């Protein structure tokens, strides 16, 4: 059986250990602070689609619309030049077109009708 006095001494030793500390090694300190930097780093938009992306959208979409309108009005030759047969249409319906229109509207269409 243990002596109560000795038990008190052991308790005192354990209590003394309560206030004990150990200097942090530099490597550990650096790792902990690197973790902190990583965790608190500001979140960057994925793929860099930030302000630059929004600006491209705001400027690009209306710009493309204006360019298309300008081509159609001021440079019609350019537009017709990229169409099959030079953009020349006879105003009549081809066979494939009559089939498509029948499928869509259910009305009888005759080849050569005009829209």
């Amino acid at each position: 059986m243990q002596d109560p006095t000795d038990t008190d001494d052991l308790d005192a030793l354990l209590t003394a250990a309560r206030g004990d500390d150990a200097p942090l090694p530099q490597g550990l300190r650096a790792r902990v602070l690197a973790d902190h930097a990583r965790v608190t780093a500001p979140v960057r938009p994925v793929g860099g689609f930030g302000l630059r992306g929004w600006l491209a959208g705001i400027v690009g979409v209306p710009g493309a619309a204006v360019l298309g309108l300008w081509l159609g009005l001021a440079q019609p030759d350019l537009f017709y030049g990229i169409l099959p047969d030079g953009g020349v249409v006879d105003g009549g319906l081809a066979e494939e077109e009559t089939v498509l229109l029948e499928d869509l509207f259910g009305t009888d269409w005759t080849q050569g009708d005009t829209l």
Partner: protein
Amino acid sequence: MTDTRQTDAALLTLAGQGDAAAAAALLDRLGPRLLAFCRRMTGGDTAQAEDIVQEAFLRLWQKAPEWDAGGAAQMSTWLGRVAANLAIDARRRSARMTPLDDDMPLADDAPSAVARLIRAEGLTALDAALAQLPERQRQALVLRHIEGYSNPDIAAMMGCGVEAVESLTARGKRHLAALLAPLKPE
């Protein structure tokens, strides 16, 4: 105590906003004490103790935005609890150490050396003796008699009953006294 808590909370708030200096200050305030605790919990396994400290602080950084400065939890206690759980989990996973037999016989004159050890190299001897204890005895003993956790808290951490904790700490204390006995000056 309140000042300490407020200072810690203020530093953590800044650290959570990315302030590296605040993070370093908080680490320097709480880290050394936590490392000493982890070394004891791991039986002197320095590498494992450092890994636990790193992981505990990582969780603190992650918790920074939602830390309740006015809450009941003191930051050092919160860190200690996280570290204790990590140490217990780590030791559960690895069975590398060969503990002493839990029923090791005690030396008759064992505890009488302790008083002198306090004045000499008491803490070093204590750590060496703790490292030789069976793992669960050491963890229970450190948590109860050094860290001051309640038996129900320890039971929750260690995943056992309160009676088991009482048994572990009692046996741990007897073993510790037995291990310190040979250091008694003639």
